[in-house]
């Protein structure tokens, strides 16, 4: 891959904005709540601004890896700080920027231990940015772990429903995944004989097929835990339900994408032969995940559980796209990572708003909520429509691409997945009808609707979904500029 050095350290600034905010927060008093939130918002906003800048100014015609920065970290072990942007990670950096920015806005009403909350949230998002931009396997894994662990404290302290159980379960699941990832990446590192963690260099190492098969399956399951690949998804609905709103947004919106992105970037990129060997298994697990998520979601009455299981199903679509190993499949898959991230953030953001007021997420208890809070309900309904794959929304194009590719490569899995999606649409409509269009619950009639300021983060998310729904070519063109050389390299 051609590398174009950056004329200004944009990516480092994007990465360092959240930790800088974090350090400033450390010196602020607990009582200065507005200042704490303002600093967090500025830090998140800086990252978002730079993410938009890199997304827009990435030169598709030039291609390759742009905005590259490289500094040696540990010479003896071949560890470098190596960041860059290409078509695969530009959308995901943008996604992270949008979700953290709207996440901070969503938590504007938080009063309990505000300072610590934003400290941990900024720590988490630093890890996420780091993973998406790193091209050094060691740093990649370092950031990956940074993204995983603050979650424990965030859920434990600020969460709801069964939070202790959920926090411990989530952390142990993800760390068990890391237990597979460490031997996997070290196997690649040591068997390459190059003594470098640079992924572009390792790509040219031509590992023996046997090593590729072993490493691929370890990395696939290790990262797959975070991507909620069936049957390792069980932490995800529980964790999403227990987490506070902005953490659910970040977690379902961005963190799960770390898993699928890592499968693409590390496992598939470095072990193409391993991918060829295991791709059918990938497709099988993904299809089971899609169907399973939809049907279990049908039986839920808690809105957050409904979204949690729909995430399992939608992440299944991402995985299915990856498993095809075709241009359309990968295109759709990366697009779906982006679209699903924005969509779930919108889901959790709107449910969070409703829950903060009513203290219930029960579908039947909410009843005809759209008559009480039409705007808040509209946010949720938009997300539900997007989840059902309605045209005009970003995820429509993403899912379409994945299904076109899948039907060509795995006809049965493709048809099953499409059938599941139809059922999924049914289930989205059922939820919408029961919670928003039945008789209103008299308990809740005194609540006021969303104020324009609190509605702002949701508006941003809806705007993004519609923008890429009507102009998918902006995204697809960018992703394609990376996917085509990616597949040629395999």
């Amino acid at each position, binding site marked *: 891959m051609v590398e174009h050095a950056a004329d200004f350290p944009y990516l480092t600034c994007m990465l360092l904005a959240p930790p800088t905010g974090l350090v400033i927060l450390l010196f602020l008093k607990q009582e200065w709540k507005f200042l704490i939130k303002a600093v967090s918002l500025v830090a998140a906003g800086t990252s978002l601004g730079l993410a938009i800048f890199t997304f827009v100014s990435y030169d598709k015609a030039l291609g390759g890896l742009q905005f590259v920065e490289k500094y040696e970290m540990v010479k003896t072990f071949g560890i470098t700080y190596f960041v860059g942007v290409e078509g695969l990670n530009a959308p995901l950096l943008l996604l992270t920027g949008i979700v953290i920015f709207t996440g901070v806005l969503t938590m504007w009403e938080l009063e309990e231990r505000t300072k610590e909350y934003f400290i941990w949230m900024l720590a988490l998002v630093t890890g996420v940015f780091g993973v998406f931009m790193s091209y050094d396997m060691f740093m990649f894994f370092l950031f990956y772990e940074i993204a995983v662990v603050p979650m*424990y404290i965030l859920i434990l302290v600020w969460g709801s429903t069964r939070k202790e159980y959920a926090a411990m379960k989530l952390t*142990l699941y993800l760390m068990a995944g890391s237990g597979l990832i460490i*031997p996997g990446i*070290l196997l690649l590192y040591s068997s390459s004989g190059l003594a470098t963690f640079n992924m572009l260099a390792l790509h040219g190492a031509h590992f023996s097929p046997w090593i590729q098969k072993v490493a691929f399956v370890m990395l696939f399951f290790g990262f797959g835990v975070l991507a909620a690949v069936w049957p390792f998804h069980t932490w995800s609905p529980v964790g999403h339900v227990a987490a506070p709103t902005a953490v659910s947004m970040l977690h379902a919106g961005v963190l799960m994408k770390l898993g699928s992105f890592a499968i693409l970037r590390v496992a598939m990129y470095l072990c193409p032969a391993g991918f060829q060997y295991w791709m059918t298994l990938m497709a099988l697990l993904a299809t089971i995940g899609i169907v399973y998520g939809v049907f279990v979601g049908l039986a839920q009455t808690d809105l957050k559980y409904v979204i949690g299981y729909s995430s399992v199903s939608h992440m299944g679509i991402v995985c299915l796209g990856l498993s095809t190993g075709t241009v359309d499949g990968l295109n759709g898959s990366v697009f779906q990572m982006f679209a699903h991230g924005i969509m779930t953030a919108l889901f959790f953001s709107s449910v969070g708003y409703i829950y903060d007021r009513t203290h219930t997420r029960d579908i039947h208890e909410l009843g005809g909520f759209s008559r009480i809070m039409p705007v808040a309900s509209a946010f949720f309904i938009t997300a539900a429509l997007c989840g059902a794959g309605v045209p005009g929304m970003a995820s429509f194009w993403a899912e379409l691409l994945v299904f076109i590719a899948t039907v060509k490569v795995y006809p049965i899995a493709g048809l099953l997945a499409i059938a599941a999606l139809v059922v999924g649409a049914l289930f989205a409509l059922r939820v919408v009808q029961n919670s928003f269009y039945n008789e209103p619950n008299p308990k809740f009639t005194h609540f006021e609707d969303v104020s324009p300021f609190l509605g702002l983060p949701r508006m941003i998310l809806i705007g993004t979904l519609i923008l890429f729904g009507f102009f998918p070519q902006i995204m697809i063109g960018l992703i394609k500029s990376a996917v085509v050389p990616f597949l040629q390299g395999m």
Partner: protein
Amino acid sequence: MNVMTFGPELYYLAVALVFFALSLRREAKVVTDYQVALVLTALGVVVTAACLFQQGELFFKAYRVDLFSQIFKFALALGLFLVLTISHNLAHIEARLHAEFYLFLTTTTIGMMMLVSSVELLTIYVALELSSYSLYILVPMRRGDGIDVEAGIKYLFIGAVSSGFMLFGLSYIFGATHTTYLSEILPRLPLLVASPIGVLGLLLSLAGFFFKLSVFPFHFWAPDVYQGAANQVTAFIATASKAAAVALLLRLAALGTSYGYGFAQALMILSIISMTLGNLVAIVQKDFKRLLAYSSIAHAGYFLIGILTLQETGYIAAVYYALAYLVMNFTVFMVLSEVAADGRDLKIAELAGLHRRSPLLSMSLIVGIFALAGVPPSIGFTGKLLLFTSAMNQGYFWLVLIGAVNGTISLYYYLKVVYAAYFIDNPALPPLQLSGPIRLLNYALIVVVLGFGVFPDRIVELAKAAVKAVL
């Protein structure tokens, strides 16, 4: 002989004499003694740092001063100083014994300093015993209800038994090679590869250090001694003493290079049992110091991973991890001794409400605990990953896999500590007041743990230069 080459040892000998003089006073002056001790040990850190790049061989070549030994001497001096910074409140040690407490801490430090420089079997043994005997006295020095005596006796017995094993092993090595100098043993070892006497002798002679490092099967003392000794003594045993043991294991294990496979296999089994046992038993602990004791047994297993590679990268990783372990484990012990200001044993549940009682201490605790658990961006994570990398380079795939799985298991009990400090609250407990220097120490430790975790290059390069002297 240049005085500087033997500088740290001479300095600490003088310090020990000062403490001896102080201990002769009829009426103890607690505050003055403490201030004197703090200043002298702080100066000691400066002295050892000044002697960092000394080189030479002393005492008929039985004593070697090189970068490797000097780095560990610096670590020991730092460890002693750090332990004294948290000794401002020795609640469980009688006032008239305070000077003796400083005296024996200093003598054990001298013993360990001599240990890391020794390259002759008898010198190694004498230095080891010097450091051990001082600790045998320090452990039961706590005013307790019998638990201190139990700990003291257990420590003494298991220490004596492992010394016995060690002497037996040394006799085998001497018998087989007719020399006690490491440099002369090394070329003669390949002749013995066929006979098991060499491997057996070498493994047995490592026993003394397995004891110090609490490697299975010499780990039984750790939980009781950790719990029974005063918090500050435990902190010293858990930090400086481990670093010295790792240093000597690295020197001695280098002899095993010629045995290759069999020797490494034996260490690998000990490593796997140590980390698995330590991590599993730690899960059920209620007492914080006992939990840390089992965590130290598990960490002994991690150290062995670096040692058994018998390669430069593994040794670098082990040196890095030993220094990292000293800092991160001390961070946790500092929090422990500040929370248990009256010198009691701290239950994990007693950490409740720490985030409210002292946000700074709870931040240090989280950083220290996550570093021990191997969570980035900390020196613990980087060190562990470097250890695993070096092991994988030698083809120990299963060892790395088991080590990584152990990391997951250990996270469970480390998270229980975080859970207690961050989530449970006990409104009855008042906020903790920290003195200025302790606050400063907190900040310094956090910066070191995180800073060298993200930018480990300087330490790695230093360790690389040091390891050249050993292999």
